[in-house]
C-alpha cells in the first residue's frame, strides 16, 4: 500500500514537472516548442488517410463534396414579382398584369416547401456538416462506408483523446484558471499605476495562453498591424465562448457582459479587480441608456483596453454571419472588426447553448483533436457622418463575412430562441398586395 502511494505520488510529480517544463514555461514567455505543430501534422496526415479510406467506398465522392457546402435543393432566388409574373404569362387569356390569380398559391406553397426541406437560418444554429468524417463521434449519415481499419484508428483515437489528452487538458485548464484568479487578485491589491496595468495584462495573457494550450489550439493571426488599440471597440463574429480565449491570446481586451454566479462569478470578480472590465447586473442590462453610457465612458478613456463585443448576440455555427445588433455601433469611437474562422476538421467549436451546457461543451472541446483557427484583423472602421447605426453595422458585418469566407445573412441570430417578428410577414403581404392591386395600397394600411 505504502509502495503504491509512493509510486502514485512519483507519477504525479513527473506529470506536473513535464507539464510545467513543456507547457507552462513556454506559455509564460509566449514561445512555442513545436510540439503542437508536430501533433497537428500527424493529425492532418491521419485524417487525410481516413478520408481516402472512407471515400473509396463512395461511387461518386465529388457529389458528396458539393452537397455539404451549398444547399440541397435548387432554388430560384428571383423576387416575388418575377415569379408571380411568370405564373401569369403561362395563361394565354389576356389579363392585365395585376389582379389575383388562383395559381398564385403555387408560389407561396413552393416557397414554403423549400423552407421545410432546407432553410438558411435554422441550419446555422446546429453544427456544421462536414465533408469528411474527422474520426470524432459526430457520426453523420453521410459517412456510411467505414472499414475495419478506420474503425481501429477511431478506437485508438478515442483512447488518446480520453485517456491522454483529456487529463492533460483538464490539468492545464485548472492551472490556467487558478493562475488568473490568484494573479488577478494579487495584482488588484497594487495601487493604480503603469506597473499595475502591465502586470495585469501579463496575468491575463499567460492565463489565455495556458487555456489555449488546454484546447490544443493552433491559431493563426493575420494582419497584426490592425490589432485593436486602446480606446476602441473590437467586434467579431461569435461561435462560442472560446472566441474570447482565442482573441485574448494575442492582446488584452476589456470584457462586456453580465455578472454571473458560480465559478464564472469568481473569475469575473478577480478580473475586474486587476483591470477595468464592464460587468452589468442583470437588471442593468435592460437599461439601454445606462449600458451605452458606461460603454461610451470606457471607450473614450484612451488608457483603457479596447472593448470586445460580439454584436450577433448569440453563437452561430461559424458558417455565416448574422445580423449585427446596432447597439455597439451607436457608441461611437473606432471599430476594429475581427473575423474568426475555425477549421471544423479537428473539432467542432460551435456552442449550441440550447443543447449543451457549458461543462459538456468544454468536455467535448477537450476531447476533440485540436482547435485550429484563423483570425483576421481588419482595418479599423468608423461611422460616416450621415450614416445611421444600422447601416454601419451592416457595413462592418459584410467586411467580416467577406474576410472570413462566411455567408452573410440579414436574419437576426435571436431567432435561435424567439419567433420571427410579424413585421416580416407583413412585408411579404404588402409585396403581394402591390402585385395584385398596384402601388396604391397605402391608404387602407394607414387606417388600420
Amino acid at each position, binding site marked *: 500500500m505504502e509502495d503504491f502511494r509512493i509510486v502514485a505520488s512519483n507519477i504525479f510529480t513527473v506529470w506536473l514537472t513535464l507539464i510545467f517544463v513543456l507547457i507552462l514555461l513556454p506559455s509564460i514567455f509566449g514561445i512555442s516548442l513545436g510540439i503542437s505543430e508536430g501533433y497537428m501534422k500527424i493529425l492532418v496526415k491521419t485524417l487525410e488517410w481516413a478520408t481516402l479510406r472512407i471515400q473509396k467506398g463512395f461511387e461518386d465522392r465529388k457529389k*458528396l463534396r458539393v*452537397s455539404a457546402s451549398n444547399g*440541397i435543393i435548387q432554388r430560384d432566388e428571383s423576387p416575388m414579382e418575377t415569379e408571380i409574373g411568370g405564373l401569369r404569362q403561362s395563361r394565354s387569356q389576356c389579363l392585365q398584369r395585376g389582379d389575383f390569380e388562383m395559381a398564385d398559391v403555387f*408560389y407561396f406553397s413552393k416557397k414554403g*416547401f423549400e423552407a421545410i426541406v432546407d432553410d438558411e437560418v435554422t*441550419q446555422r444554429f446546429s453544427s456544421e456538416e462536414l465533408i469528411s468524417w474527422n474520426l470524432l463521434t459526430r457520426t453523420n449519415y453521410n459517412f456510411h462506408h467505414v472499414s475495419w481499419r478506420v474503425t481501429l484508428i*477511431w478506437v485508438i483515437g478515442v483512447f488518446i483523446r480520453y485517456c491522454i489528452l483529456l487529463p492533460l487538458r483538464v490539468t492545464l485548464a485548472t492551472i490556467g484558471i487558478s493562475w488568473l484568479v490568484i494573479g488577478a487578485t494579487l495584482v488588484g491589491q497594487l495601487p493604480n499605476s503603469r506597473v499595475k496595468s502591465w502586470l495585469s495584462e501579463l496575468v491575463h495573457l499567460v492565463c489565455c495562453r495556458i487555456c489555449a494550450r488546454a484546447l490544443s489550439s493552433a491559431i493563426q493571426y493575420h494582419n497584426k498591424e490592425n490589432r485593436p488599440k486602446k480606446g476602441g471597440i473590437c467586434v467579431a463574429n461569435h461561435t462560442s465562448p472560446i472566441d474570447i480565449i482565442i482573441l485574448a491570446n494575442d492582446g488584452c481586451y476589456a470584457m462586456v457582459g453580465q455578472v454571473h454566479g458560480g465559478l464564472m462569478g469568481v473569475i469575473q470578480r478577480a478580473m475586474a479587480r486587476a483591470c477595468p472590465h464592464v460587468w452589468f447586473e442583470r437588471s442593468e442590462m435592460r437599461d439601454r441608456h445606462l449600458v451605452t453610457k458606461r460603454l461610451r465612458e470606457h471607450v473614450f478613456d484612451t488608457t483603457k483596453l479596447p472593448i470586445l463585443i460580439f454584436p450577433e448576440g448569440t453563437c452561430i455555427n461559424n458558417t455565416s454571419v448574422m445580423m449585427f445588433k446596432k447597439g455597439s455601433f451607436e457608441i461611437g469611437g473606432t471599430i476594429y472588426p475581427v473575423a474568426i474562422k475555425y477549421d471544423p476538421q479537428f473539432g467542432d467549436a460551435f456552442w449550441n447553448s440550447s443543447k449543451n451546457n457549458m461543462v*459538456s461543451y468544454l468536455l467535448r472541446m477537450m476531447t476533440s483533436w485540436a482547435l485550429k483557427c484563423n483570425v483576421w484583423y481588419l482595418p479599423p472602421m468608423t461611422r460616416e457622418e450621415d450614416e445611421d447605426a444600422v447601416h454601419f453595422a451592416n457595413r462592418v458585418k459584410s467586411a467580416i463575412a467577406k474576410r472570413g469566407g462566411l455567408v452573410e445573412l440579414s436574419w437576426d441570430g435571436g431567432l435561435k430562441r424567439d419567433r420571427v417578428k410579424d413585421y416580416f410577414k407583413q412585408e411579404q403581404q404588402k409585396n403581394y398586395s402591390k402585385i395584385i392591386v398596384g402601388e396604391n395600397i397605402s391608404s387602407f394600411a394607414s387606417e388600420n
Partner: protein
Amino acid sequence: MGRPGIILPGKYTWERTCRSRLMSHGNTEPEYTQYGSLALTVHKPQRKEADKDFWCLRSSLLASGQSRRRLISHSQITRLYSRFTSLDKGENGTLSREDFQRIPELAINPLGDRIINAFFIEGEDQVNFRGFMRTLAHFRPIEDNEKSKDVSNSEPLNSRNNKLLFAFRLYDLDKDDKISRDELLQVLRMMVGVNISDDQLGSIADRTIQEADQDGDSAISFSEFVKVLEKVDVEQKMSIRFLH
C-alpha cells in the same frame, strides 16, 4: 455528446424485416450488396419509431426502382431524414406545428399556416417521418419516364392532378371539396394582410369565382379549379428539384 456510432457488419435487422415485408408484396429482392456495412447512430429510445420508418422507407424506396431508375436517391432520403430529426426539437420522432413554425422562412410565408396544416391529418397534432415524406412527395418533380408510363396501379402523389389537388386544399378550408366565396376571401386575407380593403378584396373574390364557376353554384369545385389552371405549368411551378 452523442454516443459513438455502432458499426454493424453486413445484414441488419431493420432491412431484414423490411425486405420480408416487401417480398410478401411480390417485389423482387432489392439490391443491398453495394451497401456493405452501415454505421447507425444510436438515438434516444423515443426516436426508434422514426428510425424504423426511416430504414423501411429507405429500403422500400430503393427497391421500388422497377424501371431501374430510383424515384428518390439514397442520399436524398437520408438528407430529408436528418432534416426531419433536426426540426424535431422535442426529440420524440414526430413533428408538431410548433416545430414547423420555428423555421423563420416558413413563419413569414403568408400561407405558412395552411402549408403546415397540409402535413397533419385531421384531428392529429403530430406527424411522423412517413407522413412528412408523403406530403413532401407532392413536390417531387415528374420524371420524363413517369410521364409516358401509363399509371396502372395508384396515381403517384406528384402527378399533375395531385399537385393541383394539393393547391386546391390550401383554399378549401372546410374540406367540403368546394371553394366558397368565404373561403377564398379568408385565404386572400392571409395573403394580403391589412393592405387591401374588404370591398376591394370582395370584388376580387367575386370576379375569381365568376370566372371559374361553370355550374352556377357560386363556388369552385375541383374540376372547375383544374379547368382554370389548365394552361399553367403546374409540373414546374409545384416541384422542388434536388441538386444531387
